[in-house]
């Protein structure tokens, strides 16, 4: 089986990619995907840690985290829809009625 | 001992005014108009009751306290209730010869102010606010608990803020905010100083009235007692460095309130914009809070630091004295001139404190008192100009004495009193300050040129006052030249309530000028007490006198 260290290394990579993407991409959907990436990085870490410690709660955490991610996506998409309805765009840069 | 008598002094006006305000606040315009007369009357009666109480205290009708021989850090009419026990905060009130004259002054100025501004617009709200102002001011003077002191110290800002904002002049918006923010900024620094002082108390041997949570106390007598103990065993209370820092932090708050140059610029704005009543209370009592605070806290707690900063205080005092007077010469607005003259007079107080001589301190105390009677009259006169002529520009009018003998006479009297004419209250303080200063200089071997400032000011003050009188109430030929702002209407003289107020103020100015001992003896006694009870034991052979 794989060495958990590698997994967590991969997760770190995913996290950095996700975080980087979150503030480089304009499109809200893609940003949302980046966020998912970060969450999944966390999940992998949990999984790896669970293996590492041989502790089942890690898996539970992962499951819960997935659930959270799912609901987050649901809410996010709903909000994006509403935004599109009002602003005719979901590009983060263009939705800036509120500022200063 | 009717100790309880000191309680209503604070509570009564505040509660009464809040009740009245709540009562008024949900009345509509017409209702307010109808209400304003009874409310004004009620406020007058309340304030007269207060005056009665303090006067009774003075004549030993209540509690027969003799105001002389009260030794340092003991207080009469004291009360202590638990307030916020966990922090060692108590509702502690008490009076000594330092605070009592101020309290009497406040209670005296309240009715006078109400009378002088008898016809102020929207009286149903105005007079309760004035009453609240009085209550807050009294609170500052009777508070013997640092927390309570600070609470009232800030509380005074609120009514004054509204007085300026609602009844003020054209720029009242700016002036009121400047007044509030400027003084608040200074006093929060003071607050930090107080808290730091609070926690520098020794928790291992906790003092009386200590908080259950903090193990320290806010109780001023206790702290003063402890400080005295620590100071008089040779070393500095809290150590030299800390004491200096705390002294400076506290002084900042008081100097701004006083106000001393260069922290004075809030004063002219506030005064010029404030309504007559506001100015009267502001100049009459509120400025004195600064001087009072100096005596109550930094001087009483940190004599070493006082001696250390003596030169600084002296310089600030001199600068305020001279700078204020010279700026007066350059003013064209009557009220602004008077405001700057207050700055100059406050310089006298500061110099008196800096001499570290009983005589100088007595001079400072008497100046607080005398200026508290004279400056309201000055501002009452300015207010009359504003109210009747709609103009306070010096030189905008001529020969007003012809049409307004009362106003002219009051003006002349107030001006003369303020420029220190003998047999009027102001002279005594100035004379004592001069003597104390010279004695101090001679004994200390300081340069004689410190006298140049006061000497200069004696002449300059006469200069700007006479100049302003010549160009307002005098001259004008056979046909006087009323201000253009009157638009040709007949020139009115002041109304009867104003006359009454002027007469009252003038009477007391003369009374305390001819018989200064009425108030001076107790002040003199207090200065002797603090000097022999604090300064000499602590500073022993210090070089602050001879």
């Amino acid at each position: 089986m794989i060495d958990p260290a590698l997994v967590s290394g991969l997760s770190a990579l995913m996290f950095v990619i996700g975080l980087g993407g979150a503030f480089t991409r304009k499109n809200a959907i893609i940003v949302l995907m980046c966020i998912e990436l970060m969450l999944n990085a966390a999940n992998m870490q949990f999984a790896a840690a669970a293996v590492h410690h041989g502790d089942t709660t890690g898996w539970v955490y992962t499951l819960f985290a997935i659930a959270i991610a799912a609901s987050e996506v649901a809410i996010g998409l709903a909000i994006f829809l509403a935004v599109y309805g009002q602003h005719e765009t979901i590009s983060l840069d263009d939705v800036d009625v509120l500022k200063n | 001992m009717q100790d309880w008598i000191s309680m209503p002094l604070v509570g009564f006006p505040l509660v009464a005014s809040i009740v009245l305000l709540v009562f008024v606040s949900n009345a509509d315009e017409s209702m307010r108009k109808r209400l304003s007369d009874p409310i004004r009357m009620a406020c007058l009666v309340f304030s007269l009751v207060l005056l009665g109480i303090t006067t009774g205290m003075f004549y030993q009708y209540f509690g027969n306290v003799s105001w002389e021989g009260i030794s340092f850090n003991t207080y009469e009419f004291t009360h202590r209730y638990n307030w916020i026990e966990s922090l060692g905060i108590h509702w502690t009130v008490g009076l000594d010869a330092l605070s009592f004259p101020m309290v009497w002054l406040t209670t005296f100025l309240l009715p006078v102010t109400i009378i002088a501004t008898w016809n102020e617009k929207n009286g149903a709200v105005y007079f309760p606010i004035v009453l609240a102002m009085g209550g807050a001011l009294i609170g500052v003077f009777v508070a013997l608990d640092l927390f309570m002191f600070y609470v009232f110290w800030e509380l005074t800002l609120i009514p004054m803020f509204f007085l300026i904002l609602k009844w003020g002049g054209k720029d009242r918006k700016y002036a009121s905010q400047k007044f509030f923010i400027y003084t608040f900024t200074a006093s929060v620094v003071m607050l930090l100083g107080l808290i730091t002082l609070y926690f520098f108390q020794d928790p291992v041997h906790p003092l009386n009235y200590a908080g259950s949570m903090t193990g320290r106390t806010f109780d001023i007598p206790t702290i003063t007692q402890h400080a005295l103990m620590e100071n008089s065993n040779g070393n500095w209370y809290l150590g030299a460095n800390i004491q200096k820092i705390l002294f400076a932090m506290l002084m900042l708050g008081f100097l701004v309130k006083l106000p001393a140059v260069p922290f004075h610029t809030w004063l002219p704005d506030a005064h010029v914009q404030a309504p007559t009543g506001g100015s009267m209370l502001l100049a009459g009592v509120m400025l004195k809070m600064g001087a009072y605070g100096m005596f109550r806290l930094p001087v009483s707690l940190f004599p070493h630091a006082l001696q250390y900063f003596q030169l600084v205080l002296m310089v600030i005092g001199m600068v305020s004295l001279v700078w204020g007077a010279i700026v007066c010469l350059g003013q064209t607005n009557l009220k602004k001139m008077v405001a700057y003259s207050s700055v100059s007079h406050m310089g006298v107080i500061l110099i008196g404190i800096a001499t570290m001589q009983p005589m100088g301190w007595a001079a400072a105390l008497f100046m607080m008192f005398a200026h508290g009677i004279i400056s309201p009259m000055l501002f009452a006169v300015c207010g009359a100009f504003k109210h009747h002529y709609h103009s306070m520009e010096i030189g905008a009018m001529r020969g007003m004495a012809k049409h307004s003998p009362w106003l002219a006479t009051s003006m002349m009297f107030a001006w003369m009193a303020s420029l220190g004419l003998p047999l009027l209250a102001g002279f005594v303080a100035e004379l004592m300050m001069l003597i104390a200063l010279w004695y101090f200089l001679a004994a200390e071997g300081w340069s004689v040129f410190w006298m140049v400032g006061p000497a200069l000011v004696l002449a300059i003050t006469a200069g700007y006052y006479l100049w302003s009188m010549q160009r307002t109430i005098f001259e004008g030929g056979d046909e006087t030249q009323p201000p253009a702002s009157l638009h040709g209407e007949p020139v009115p003289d002041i109304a009867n309530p104003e006359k009454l107020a002027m007469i009252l103020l003038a009477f007391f100015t003369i009374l305390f000028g001819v018989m200064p001992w009425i108030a001076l003896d107790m002040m003199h006694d207090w200065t002797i007490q603090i000097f022999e009870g604090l300064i000499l034991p602590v500073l022993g052979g210090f070089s602050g006198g001879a």
Partner: protein
Amino acid sequence: MASTESAPLVHSEWMQFAPLIILLPMIAFAVILFLGRVFNGHPFWKKNLKEGGLIALPVMGASLILSLLLISEFLKGNSGVDQVFEQIAWINTGIWNGGSTTEPVSFGFGIYVDHVTVMLLFVASFLCLLINMFSIGYMNTDPINDNRNHRFYAEFVLFCAGMLGMVLADSFLWLFIFWEIMGLCSYLLIGFYYERPSAASAAKKAFLTTRIGDVFLMIGLVMLWDLFGSLDYAVVFATENIDAVAASSAGTLQWALGLMFIGAVGKSAQFPLHVWLPDAMEGPTPVSALIHAATMVNAGLYLVARMFPFFGAESLHGDLDDLAFIIASVGGITAVMAAAIAFVQMDLKKVLAYSTMSQLAYIFTGLGCAMYLANTLDWHHDSDAHYIVVVAFGAALFHLFNHAMAKGMLFMASGSVIHEVHHAHHHLHHHDDHGDGHDENHHDDDFDAQSMENMGGLASKMPITATAMLVGSASIMGLPLIGGFWSKEGIIANAWRVAQDDPRFLFPAMCVLLGAAMTGFYMSRMWFKTFAGKPNNEVAAHVGPTNIWIKTPLFILTFVTLSSIIFAGMGFTHWASDTEYSFLSEKNLLDGILYEMEHAFANSDPFFFILTYVAIFMGAVLGPGLAMALYGGKLAEGEEAKPWMRPVIALSAWANKRFHFDNTAIRESTLATALENRLYIDEYYDKAMVNIVAGFSNKVAEADTEVIDGTIKAIESGSQSLSTVVRSMTTGSARDYILMVAVGTLAIFLFIWGVA
């Protein structure tokens, strides 16, 4: 000095009423002011009470009587110092002088009587009464004053209270306090016609100029307090205290006295603080007579005379002669300068004002010399020296007495002249009696009732006035046997006596000698221009006699002035400072007079013998002769002067015919114009005020708003702009927010990396 040896207190029922001398007028002040406000315009108040004049009169009478009683008690008791009643503790305070406790300090009020007091007390209360009389005749008959005279009388009595208080006070502090009260009253009375810009600014000028002197006086007092620990005469003059101070700090003492002297200079209108006195003539004439001639201006002299004990103190021997010289030479300068300016004045009252300055200067010189003598001679033991000192001091005080009487009279006389000329003018030009419509056209014509151009030949029209003027002028000139002669000669002689042992004093000595001639000239010029010759215009021709209220005081004073020799005989020339040569002490009146006579005219010392006659020649022949030659002349036809004035007028006419010469060249010389412009001193002062003081204060006011308040405003606006910057970082784009989160994360990451 002898007067400080604690003598037995005189206890009599009169002494405890002494405070009333001050209190009565003070009460009268309040009463008159109040009644005036209430009953203003009421016929009874106006006609029967003369708008308060007849309330003031009895009060002044009462205080005169009380003063006389006090004086007589004093002379009977003949004691040097007299603390009439115990002090009121006025200010109580404390000082710490390095000891283990603080020591209490107290300033009290009491009454103190000695020779100087008595002299001035008599002068003040006497003249106050007479001038009060005069003002009833003067003020109440001029409609311009209607319904405001109560203000005049109120301030008048308050002034009298101040003057009497200053004289009676028992400490320098209370001297200063009453001194200031007088200053206030002078301000109010000069500004009585406040609606006239000239009057208003004159009042301000008077107050400010004297105030400048007062500042120094106050500092001097403070220094004196520091030296003696008290300001009470009883303490300050105590020989042991003076010795103590002399031992430690004589120099400081001289400084203190010098600063106090500056105050005197301001009050007595000496150079360089003299500018206010001529302008003060803007006040009503009674005011000029009382305050600016007879009493208040003497306060400065009184103060200096009060310093005598220091100069006389044995322990301070030779320490204070510089100050004495300064006092004398200030007097000398002013004497000449004022007299010179008086040459060219056309305004009757201005002439008198400058002559007042000049005469006061004489007294200062006299005092200065007396001080010098007292300070340098060993007069405590050497009886000759003692005599010299006493006479010198006495001469000065006696001149004060003579001058006060004469000048008071002169002013009242000039007042009556102006008054009548004024009326005549109105009778001629506006044919309405003083009634409605009077005030309107009162000032609108440029007729100047005070200018001597509009007078001339009045000797026959107003005999009493002319006589009074004549006598007064003679007294001021020092015409032999009349009034001022006795004292003036003494002053000149003493000046030269001092000049003999200290060459510095040659300057004041020359000044006073020269001054004598100048006085002679300008005084007689004034009299001849006014009373001799033909009327200069038809106004002068229609002047009528004046009223009884005015005549009476003139009459009385004429005789007082004429009988000056009697006072001299009584020993006024030297009793005033010492008990030994006291009032009628060793000589009876006749001996005294004879003694004075021979001492004056047949001085044993050749130098002073010659000096006397030189002085007499200059003052009584040269000056008047010149004036006669220029301005003398017969009266108009049909006009008959009183017999005692005829010779004078005749003489002047003869002189005019015989020696008349054309003086236009002199009159148009630059010096003359300079003199007409008061030597430009006022201009310089005004320039200084406007350019330096006003300019500087405006700059400071600017700095106050620009710099100090500007800093506050800068902080405020700065924080505002900072706020915009900060808020602009909230761009509104969610990406930037996320970026910030990422940056924050990174920062924390790096921080922890640093820790771990």
